[in-house]
């Protein structure tokens, strides 16, 4: 069911393609049509693939489509040069996940969807 929705989001998910307000400098992923500062003058901006963990959790009771991955960590990552994302922490033991840790964004399969098992890809991060 999610496939046409997902297709639309690929530039954001595959290349961290967002945008940046030319008036106030705020960075957005996904890209926005208008900034909370009121400006509609935004430029394309690819977010950095490096950042650090602002907060995180370990998910132990996931929704159905993530049931085979549990337990897994999800983090809020502040990226260098602006912008934040929320994503899973991969290639990292759960004990290593901490607030303040430096991470890099990596490209991964996120889950498989529906009866046909369509793979949905996107970004995760790993502690470096």
């Amino acid at each position, binding site marked *: 069911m999610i496939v046409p*929705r997902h297709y639309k*989001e690929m530039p954001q998910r595959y290349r961290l393609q967002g945008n940046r307000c030319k008036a106030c400098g705020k960075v*957005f*992923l*996904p890209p926005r049509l208008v900034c909370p500062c009121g400006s509609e003058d935004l430029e394309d901006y690819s977010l950095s693939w490096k950042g650090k963990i*602002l*907060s*995180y*959790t*370990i*998910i*132990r*009771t*996931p*929704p*159905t*489509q*993530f049931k085979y*991955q549990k337990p*897994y960590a*999800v983090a*809020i*990552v502040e990226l260098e040069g602006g912008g*934040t*994302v*929320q*994503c*899973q922490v991969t290639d990292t033991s759960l004990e290593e996940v901490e*607030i303040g840790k430096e991470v890099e964004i990596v490209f991964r399969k*996120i*889950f498989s969807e529906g009866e046909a098992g369509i793979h*949905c890809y*996107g970004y*995760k991060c790993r502690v470096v």
Partner: protein
Amino acid sequence: MRDVAVIGIGITKFGELWWQNLRELYVEAALKAIKDAGVDHLDSMYVGCMTSGLFCAQEHLGSLMADYLGQKHLPAYRIESACASGGLAFRLGYIEVASGMSDIVLVGGVEKMLTGADATFALASAADQEYEAFHGNTFPGLYAMIAKAHMTKYGTTREQMAAVAVKSHDNGSKNPNAQFPLKISKEMVLNATPVADPLGLFDCSPVSDGAAAVILCPVELAKKYTDTIIKVIGSGAATSTIALHQRDDITFLDAVYQAGKRAYEVAGLKPEDIDFAEVHDCFTIAEICCIEALGFCEVGQGGPFSEAGNTALDGKVPINTSGGLKSKGHPVGATGVAQIVELVEQLRGSAGERQVKNAKRGLAQNMGGSGGSSVVHILEVQ
């Protein structure tokens, strides 16, 4: 705008109500409210419900509920703002009566969550589906992130969070409609099955079925129905950034702060003027953040404030006398209306064992998602 009073309340048992479906739950609560008020007709109806679409494949609740309530041709609206659906429905019912367009308005809230649908998936529709849920985060996960950040920034402890749950269950044990009317110990909270670190099972409100309803009318008209006039003296609503990671400070619920600020302004009151409050404790950390944003304690001090007993039934400002979402249950669309029901019970002095002494002014704060929307009402007994 006219002054508005709440003249009737109705609520179902909250819990795993396998034998009652969506329409039956709603109609039970609505009929109770109609009888409690003693009105012989309705002019309009607001139905708060979050996601009957994902739980029951049923939308169009205005039509469905007016029909099954036997109210042929009644104008009826379904209002959605995730877990704040009930509170916002109440606000719109209040506006309609205040405007002069209608005299007798029923506001009901309902959620049927135990349907076999994946509740974790359905509830994630309150978050940013594409940039939070897509990555496998869940509702407990979002509040767990708030908790981690709050613990880091302010030194809030797991024990303080546990104290919130213990207090809520103390109150809930005195509420016959509660889903889990049982006392729990701090150790039970700390040792419970982990759900999303640092939150365990007893930090989380349950998945619940239930409904609640209230009847509103102008204060002038209310005198015809009752001697105990309970007036809506403040109302405020606000939204904020939907995705947690895009907020400037994830430990501060600014939609709650804004909604509270507006409600206090309308009422001409300060937090210290409030005798008791129902706040949106979908998780223990949520109650801590909400009492901070509502000004019942200093920002960052919700943990120690709670642990010291200030929010207990006999404390400085009793919070969630009903048991809160934690012990009473959290059928999401019903919750905001159920908070108003508890306020009215307290203000009428009919809250039984959980009655707050000298309860003259109560506040209800309902919240959607991880704080993307909130609505606050202040009620006063005249």
